């Protein structure tokens, strides 16, 4: 615990020296964050390998509760992606921000504070510390999203994010207040048996689900997420998508771990929300033309997968099936870490593309594998993992959830397991299509614009963290046995006594074996195919057409067109057809895009309506201080009269 707190302090202080140093402030901050990561990982891994984590208790009886901060296996498990991604992001930031305007001491300070609040949030075990860290995280993230606030788009995104996160926090305040009323104190402790079935239990579940759902980006509370992720600097996007969203999941998991007897409809609700987020997340991702928005929608999809696992676990818990419970929870927790790793990797590679070409538009890129081979390899690794394809880490966590769902099929007439199976299968197939589209358009074929032609490989400070994350993805995928014990301990917090179910899985070592066999086979075949030098510089054989050019290539929009047509009832793409008139028509344009269903079709119109309604109040708002003081005086007078009466 002491080591963990030291890490927390180092992270919080990482930006401070930068204010006093004329040069190298960035490097010092990275160094401190690196030290923090090493210390924090040391503390967390020790807890995950079985040693006691320790806690900081509160002596004052007024707040009376078990403890303020506790480093239990669950906290240790969630701290791993926080530490890893914040350190990787900081190193990446050196190259990404480089000499640009963004690399100010202020932003580095906020980045350190964000890391520290995340670390605090993970170990918080009292409503007070939790909400403190929660707000710290939300505000620090807001500052970082606004880093490039000269752009109107960024300002709008930051604003929406701020409103959304505080709406979520409002629900959390209500939830924690209710919790304090129910159990008599605000500490995190197991709730009495039978509470979950009462009306109070239901209210708690709904409030926590709403509050944490906003942060996690559960459909339809996700609307702040795509603009914020697209506008933030790429390593901040990586941290937001990989870690910040997971804090919503952490909160939900914490709440669920206090409930000894969740009713099965909670599980059903989580599964339904998971299926909705998962399928719609990937469907909307298919419709995007902006690389970072596309990745942001995929975060919604992955949150959906995590919810499917959690729902499965809750179903198992309430139906008394330990195996289903263990597999569901384990799959969800592992997917939290996995998504942090591969989505971090994807955002960092997307950032390299943006850095090298100056655009996030898919249709303006192309052919980058030849110009940025390492970035391309990193993006491919991330895509491979996020599609859940073997032998990378995404497969392992999805495999656990699949296995749990198959287990659940045997349980009477439960329909939820088959919903989980179908959703996962559909999500997998659509994600594959979407990442084939993204990788194919950005990295393959011929460059479509001058910017893409002139692209250059990212500097080493950006490539190193990408390599680290890619290695982690491969490592977990090839040797899942190594993390199984740690996963089991973290899961036991949610499902006491179910850890054995995970160690009894015979499949994990076989998956490793199959992964190695697959790798060897691929090497062997690759060696057999090794290209021999050929005479001449030959073009692609384009069915006999002699002069194919870059603009004739299949675009991202055309690639996704078939699927978008099939899903048009949900996506409702907006297509502006070219208008051609007259005998000699002028130049015209065609464009199509998929607007966000909640933000663009529901939230924004509703807010506009409320602005119009509240405009009536402007009569009283003249902008003059004396008038406002008069209001204060009148209010006080009115209160006085009311009290006396």
């Amino acid at each position, binding site marked *: 615990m002491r080591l963990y707190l030291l890490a927390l302090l180092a992270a919080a202080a990482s930006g401070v020296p930068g204010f006093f140093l004329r040069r190298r402030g960035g490097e010092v901050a990275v160094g401190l964050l690196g030290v923090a990561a090493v210390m924090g990982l040391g503390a967390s891994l020790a807890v995950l390998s079985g040693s006691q984590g320790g806690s900081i208790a509160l002596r004052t009886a007024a707040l009376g509760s078990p403890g303020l901060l506790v480093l239990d296996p669950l906290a240790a498990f969630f701290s791993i992606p926080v530490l890893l991604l914040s350190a990787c992001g900081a190193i990446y930031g050196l190259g990404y921000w480089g000499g640009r305007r963004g690399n100010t001491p202020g932003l580095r300070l906020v980045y350190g504070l964000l890391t520290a609040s995340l670390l605090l949030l993970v170990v918080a075990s009292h409503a007070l510390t939790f909400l403190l860290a929660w707000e710290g995280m939300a505000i620090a993230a807001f500052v970082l999203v606004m880093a490039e606030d000269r752009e109107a788009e960024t300002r709008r995104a930051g604003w929406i994010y701020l409103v959304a996160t505080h709406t979520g926090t409002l629900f959390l305040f209500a939830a924690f207040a209710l919790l304090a009323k129910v159990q008599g104190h605000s500490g995190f402790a197991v709730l009495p048996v039978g509470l979950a079935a009462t009306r109070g239990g239901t209210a708690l579940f709904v409030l926590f689900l709403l509050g944490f759902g906003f942060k996690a980006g559960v459909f339809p509370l996700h609307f702040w997420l795509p603009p914020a992720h697209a506008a933030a600097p790429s390593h901040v996007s990586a941290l937001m998508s990989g870690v910040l969203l997971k804090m919503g999941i952490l909160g939900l998991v914490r709440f669920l771990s206090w409930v000894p007897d969740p009713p099965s409809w909670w599980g059903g609700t989580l599964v339904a929300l998971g299926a909705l987020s998962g399928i719609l997340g990937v469907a909307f991702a298919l419709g995007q033309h902006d690389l970072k928005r596309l990745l942001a929608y995929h975060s919604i999809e992955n949150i959906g997968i995590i919810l499917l696992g959690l729902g499965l676990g809750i179903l198992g818990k309430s139906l008394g099936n330990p195996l289903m419970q263990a597999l569901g929870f384990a799959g969800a927790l592992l997917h939290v870490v996995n998504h942090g790793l591969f989505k971090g990797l994807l955002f960092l590679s997307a950032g390299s593309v943006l850095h090298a070409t100056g655009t996030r538009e898919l249709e303006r890129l192309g052919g980058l594998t030849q110009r940025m081979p390492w970035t391309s390899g990193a993006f491919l690794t991330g895509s491979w993992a996020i599609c859940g394809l073997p032998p990378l880490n995404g497969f392992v966590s999805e495999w656990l959830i699949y296995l749990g769902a198959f287990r659940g099929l045997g349980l009477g007439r439960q329909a939820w397991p088959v919903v989980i199976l179908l959703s996962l*299968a*559909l999500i997998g197939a659509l994600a594959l299509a979407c990442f084939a589209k993204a990788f194919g358009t950005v990295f393959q074929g011929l460059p479509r614009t001058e910017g893409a032609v002139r692209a250059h490989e990212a500097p080493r400070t950006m490539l190193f963290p990408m390599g680290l994350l890619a290695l982690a993805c491969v490592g977990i995928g090839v040797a899942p046995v190594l993390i199984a014990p740690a996963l089991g301990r973290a899961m036991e917090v949610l499902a006491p006594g179910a850890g054995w179910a995970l160690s009894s899985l015979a499949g994990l070592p076989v998956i490793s074996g199959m992964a190695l066999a697959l790798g060897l086979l691929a090497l062997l075949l690759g060696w057999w195919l090794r*290209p021999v030098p050929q005479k001449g510089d030959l073009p692609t054989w384009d069915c006999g057409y002699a002069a194919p050019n870059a603009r004739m290539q299949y675009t991202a929009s055309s690639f996704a067109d078939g699927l978008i047509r099939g899903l048009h009832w949900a996506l409702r793409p907006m297509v502006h057809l070219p208008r051609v008139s007259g005998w000699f028509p002028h130049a015209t344009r065609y464009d199509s895009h998929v607007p966000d269903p909640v933000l663009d079709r529901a939230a924004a119109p509703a807010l506009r309506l409320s602005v119009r309604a509240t405009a009536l109040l402007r009569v009283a708002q003249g902008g003059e201080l004396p008038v406002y003081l008069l209001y204060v005086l009148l209010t006080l007078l009115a209160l006085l009269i009311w009290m006396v009466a």
Partner: protein
Amino acid sequence: MVRSLLPTILPTLLHGLTVLLLPPLLPGLIAKTKAVMAGRQGPPVLQLYYDLAKLARKRAVFSRTTTWVFLAGPVGGVAAGLAASCLVPFGHTPAPVSFEGDVILFAYLFGLARFLTILSALDTGSSFEGMGAAREATFSALAEPALFLGFAALAKATSSLSLGTMLAFPGSLTARFTGPLILVLAGWAIVYLAENSRIPVDDPNTHLELTMIHEVMVLDHSGRPFALVLYGASLKLLVLGALILTPALPRAAHAWQNWLAFYVALGGLAVTVGLVESSMARFRMTKVPQFLVAGVLATGFAFLLLLV
């Protein structure tokens, strides 16, 4: 020692040899059936073996647009296909590798092969190959749920999560299970035709690139990479064939009878595919999703029948 090990090693050895040597025969059988039905002589049944031998000796030509990803398609297709072949039982002979949950790995290995094939097609920058890749990605999104619903139905019926026990269940079929099984196999037959790019979903012999799906994705491959593409496609015919044949085969008393039954059934499957291809035309591209949805519905109803 040797005598006691032999019974366990022999089936694995035979499994491996079947996977390595038999697949190119299947496209030959299909082509021969089609030729006979059309009253032609047709190419020899062993034609694909000759083609592979020839291609292995030829040098490949690479476009200047391509990168190493261009080779990942053929390599991944064969590697994933071979890995998947270890998981599926050939008739009532157990699979060499079997564990709880291998069914998911099996399905995802084909996903991996598809992903790499699509990327390899997109690597050329050719509009035609992009078109094929897009179609492959679109149609597989419908084939995947059908496959998994079938798995769900079989898992429900057999309370097992391993392909070995899920497919090769005891021959004593209860009457209650016959109906769902027929529905699952019907749904999977649609998946089989789609995944192997056969008529009525795709026509491997068409001459117009605009109407192709799978063939157009490998237009730029030549020499050894193309040999791997062809072998990988035939491997898929075998492995997915084993998936839909095994539940339909009766269990015999002796191991050799099981093997014989499997080989005969495999030949029968190839001939059936040939007959289907001879008797109908390819669907219009817009009709293909409806055909695949029929597969989803069939397997879905199978699952529902098992629930009640």
